[in-house]
């Protein structure tokens, strides 16, 4: 049976198309499974983040601000992750960063400074559960939460 591939495919076009469709279906199935896996990874990522960061969030009165990324900018500016509308608060006032399993707070050249547990913040310091941050007239308490993204 000495027959070239071109002749073979020309002789049975429906079979050739069926074979290619068969391969495409498998690739499609694979793509679908990957999509579902990506969704599962997102949920896993949220849970992993909450566990890694001890699920800490900021509470100010009735409002809660979850800490969803390793850098959280607090200020009056619309681009800030946690926007506080207070004339005593600078546009970019404080920066929270997460490293080595701890949250840190530092002053980002604010005009009126930051107090943590009543003490003025002069350099970066570690934040702990139940610490109270005073920025302008706002008081924010560090509490445990569910770790949702502040930007979502």
């Amino acid at each position, binding site marked *: 049976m000495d027959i*070239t*591939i071109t002749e*073979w*495919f020309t002789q049975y076009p429906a079979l*050739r*198309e069926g*074979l*290619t*469709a*068969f*391969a*495409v279906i*498998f*690739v*499609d*199935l*694979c*793509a679908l*499974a*990957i999509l579902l*896996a*990506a*969704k*599962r*990874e*997102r949920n*896993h*990522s949220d849970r*992993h*983040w909450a566990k890694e960061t*001890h699920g*800490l969030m900021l509470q100010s009165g009735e409002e809660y601000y979850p800490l*969803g*990324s*390793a*850098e959280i*900018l607090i200020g009056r*500016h*619309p*681009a800030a992750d946690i926007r506080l509308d207070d004339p005593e608060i600078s*546009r*970019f006032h404080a*920066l929270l*960063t*997460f*490293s*080595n*399993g*701890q*949250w840190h707070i530092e002053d*980002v*050249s604010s005009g009126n400074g930051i107090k943590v547990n009543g003490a003025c913040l002069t350099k970066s310091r*570690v*934040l*702990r*559960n139940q610490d109270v941050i005073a920025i302008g007239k706002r008081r924010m308490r560090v509490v*445990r939460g569910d770790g949702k*993204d502040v*930007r*979502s």
Partner: protein
Amino acid sequence: MKESGKALAHPLLMVLVLAAHAAMLLVILPMGNFAEWVKLACAVLTMDFIGSIVLQLVQRQACTVDTVLLLVLGMSTIYQSCFGGLEFAWKHYLFGLIAFLACQVSYLVVRNPYRAERLKPLWYTLFGILLLSILLLTGSRGIWIDLGFITIQPSEFVKPIFVLICASSMQTQLKKSSVLGIHFVPDNLGLILCTVLIAAVQWWCRDLGSLPTFAAVALVGLYLRFFYLREKFSMRLVVFLGICGIAACIAAWKLAPAYVQERLHSDIWSDMTGSGYQQVKGLVAIAEGGWFGKGAGAGSLHSVAASNTDLIFASICEEWGLFSAVMAVILVLFMPAAGLTVPPRSYYHAGLTVGVAAVFIVQMTLNIFGSCNLIPFTGVTVPFLSQGGSSMLSCGILAGFLKAAQAPQFTIPVKKGGKPNGGAA
């Protein structure tokens, strides 16, 4: 190196990848040349096997990017081996394997954004070395370095380095310097200088096809810095930058070299045997392929120059059909899409993700639209599908950046003798 917490190994995904490759291999079995088919089948299935082992060893928290990468690499090896008759494309396969390993290495290097940010002087140095190598080693304003046994395209390696330079953390953006009363962020100045330098070098060596890719990465990098982290939104700045952009485009249009002017104004249908030959052949191949193609190895486009690089989309369309070609393109786009599905946890990784997305999307757009005669032919490759070692390796490194954004690590190394930090709460 294993991640703590519940591991997300996806054995089902790996079985599906194997099944997809096996189905494709079955389709090409009637092509004859059984010896080559066995080589190809063993190679592709071995890559899947090695891939799944490497995934278990390196990290198991996020493996969407790796799974897509393995699927696409296997598919592209099968495509490349079938053009013009079945012959195992071992070079493409080897570079695919190296790209997969490069992805794991780059993931390990940049998964900690603090460490990657500290390595920025190294990225600038590598950037400078690569630009110098383009200027000094390619010879007569070329883009290739010929080492005898292999040719290297250094501009391809500039892409991942440029993406690393474009990414920036919030802390870096808040550090300002002042010279003669002008306040500026040194990192932003570095990015602008690098953008100008790469544009000048690409112009000098006549590699204008890569310019849109670098421009896209620079634009998303600058957007994230100047507009998302803006201290004061200025409409005047937007208008000024817009006017500058339009002026640069007009100047580039007018000052473009003669061969570019020719491509911009030529009608491929009036010069089908000359300058429009490749595009005409490509369009005919896409049309002839239809939904399910003429059959693997049954195409005629392989006789046209650059059929497995610049015309890869048309080649796949011809032999495997439009369905397969579109699916392959969508799968490549899955990689940055997966990176954006799981939101990055740091500004640095967000910068890396959008930078890689810009590279992949612009390169695919230029290649596919060029093949379809919607824009002039640029000679840019499709990530992972086109043949070419430099491009493959560079794209593998970029895929590692996407993976790093999905499974980051936030550790600031403690100096020797320093006090280790305790828990937060």
